[in-house]
């Protein structure tokens, strides 16, 4: 009888101990199955992130992508900064552009942001290398190294870059903005690195406009590649031969 009681106590303890140990291990096992890249692993060129914008579906008065970017990255209406800068001095990471064909009168609308070129002129001209392109195609500015010379702004064929003309406060942690440095669309690299999509694409999808797509241009089976193959996609200023990561349909 005594022997049975002791065995039960030990068995209970063992089963509880194993359960506790299992609980500590299982999250690690489950994490291992997620695809997101660990933070200390460098980006590779196996992936090339890109966007596809269908100008036929882009509405003239809609600014969802712009508003989403402002909120996500803390510029424009998404922050209390830049109170002193004039309208021409305020930063714009993405803007809606309205095109009217001079011959036909045809009107189009499209969002314009950093095109994340493969051979980006801004990267070529930066004297310190602050303007850089990641291996996965995303063009960024290293805020530690930027000296604010604005040569990249002169060089950009899309006027995608902005200079910060005054002190900044309460920046978003993932979008450090500093007076005297240059910034532009980061393709929401902080979201992309965690398997997410850029805020502009997410907002457009949420509003069911279906004008913007994001994905891996190097993967022929990705939704963006399939759509590009079927319907094509042009670059703005294609004659410059920059091989942009952002493509447009209906230009």
């Amino acid at each position, binding site marked *: 009888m005594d022997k049975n009681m002791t065995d039960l106590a030990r068995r209970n303890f063992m089963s509880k101990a194993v359960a506790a140990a299992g609980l500590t291990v299982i999250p690690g096992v489950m994490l291992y199955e997620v695809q997101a890249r660990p933070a200390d692993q460098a980006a590779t060129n196996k992936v090339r992130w890109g966007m596809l914008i269908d100008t036929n579906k882009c509405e003239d008065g809609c600014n969802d992508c712009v508003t989403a970017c402002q909120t996500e990255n803390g510029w424009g209406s998404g922050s209390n900064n830049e109170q002193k800068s004039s309208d021409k001095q305020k930063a714009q990471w993405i803007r*809606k*552009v309205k095109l009217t064909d001079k011959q036909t009168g045809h009107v189009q609308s499209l969002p314009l942001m950093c095109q994340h070129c493969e051979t980006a002129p801004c990267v070529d*001209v930066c*004297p310190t290398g602050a303007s850089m392109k990641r291996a996965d195609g995303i063009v960024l500015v290293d805020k530690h190294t*930027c000296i604010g*010379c604005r040569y990249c702004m002169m060089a950009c064929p899309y006027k995608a870059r902005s200079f*910060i003309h*005054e002190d900044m406060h309460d920046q978003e942690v993932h979008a450090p903005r500093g007076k005297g440095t240059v910034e532009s669309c980061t393709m929401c690299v902080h979201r992309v690195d965690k398997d997410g999509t850029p805020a502009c694409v997410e907002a457009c999808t949420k509003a069911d406009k279906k004008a913007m797509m994001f994905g891996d241009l190097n993967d022929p089976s990705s939704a963006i590649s399939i759509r590009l193959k079927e319907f094509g996609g042009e670059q703005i200023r294609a004659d410059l031969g920059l091989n942009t990561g952002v493509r447009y349909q209906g230009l």
Partner: protein
Amino acid sequence: MKTVRYLEIEGNSKGYLALLGMLGLMILGSLAAFYYMEHNGHWVSNMDNQIVWGTPHVFAVFLIVAASGALNIASISSVFNKTAYKPLAPLSGLLALALLAGGLMVLVLDLGRPDRLIVAMTKYNFKSIFAWNMIFYNGFFAIVAVYIWFTMDRTMGQYKKAAGIAAFIWRLMLTTGTGSIFGFLVARQGYDAAIMAPMFVIMSFSFGLAIFLLVLMASYNWTHRPLGDALFRRLKNLLGVFVAAVFYFVMVYHLTNLYATEHHGVEAFILRDGGIYTQLFWYGQIILGSLIPLALIYHPTWGMNRMLVGLASIFVVIGGMIQMYIIIIGGQAYPLNMFPGKEVSSSFFDGVVNVYSPSLPEFFLGLGGFGVALIAVALAVKVLKFLPSSLADADVDPHHS
């Protein structure tokens, strides 16, 4: 063989002190403007995300271009063996260094993060012509300093020619690099032209010699030292050649652009529809900066009048600043041609001519560049033997009987 005697200026007169005071005020104004812009941020200037480089860059690039041209007289004497210019070589080198220092000061002080200058000096992206320019500018100081030493120190005379050739080649690379800052930009219709680099080289010849002539005339008039007619005539005629050469390059640049329909937009903007830019081009750059100086220099009687030649040099300098203004600011004012054949509008000022006017902080910052350059020369000629005690024809001209 006459030996030229070099002598420091006395530098005791009220006029000299007043000059130093005025230049000092210019520098103080520049530093005040720098503090104001750096402390508050560039929102206090009229530069924005459309006109990215403004008045400070006009001053800075002009001074840097003129700096390499100011070395021409020394180069002609050492590299091309024109003995008539040999007495002027030390002043030529000094002025080159002074102008470069002034231009670089303005350029650095306008940076968004001038505190990161050490980053710019230690991290280089060698595909960037800007990075190469930093190497060229720093090397220019070293090479020209050595060259000046060799021209002033008789014991180093045998190395003067080698140093002169090195300095000449280096300044050609430097000015080519400066012109390529604009020539390499595919984005804008007003740039992206191979002619920008050699045009800047020729502009440097013209602007540098004009400033050199003005400094020479001022130095010799105000110290009552003789400046011979023969030497003066040679310099004046050389300036005329350079002004004509700049005019030629400008004509080729615009005529070539006019041939290509894709460039008609920016050409119409500069030459006809650009408002202030069109007026500055025709009245400032062409008439004031090229045609009037050519008339003054080559006219049989006007060209013999030193005041008129000095006036011509001043016009060349003003015309050169205007030319720089049209290149740098006019080139940015004209919108990017992203969607040919379409009217473009956006909240980020796409498709419109960008409006700009110089703000006071920018102007004072730029003016300080001239202040630094000229005060460096004024102090140096008092401290060291840069100026020959006499440039009268009898004393320096090898062909004078």
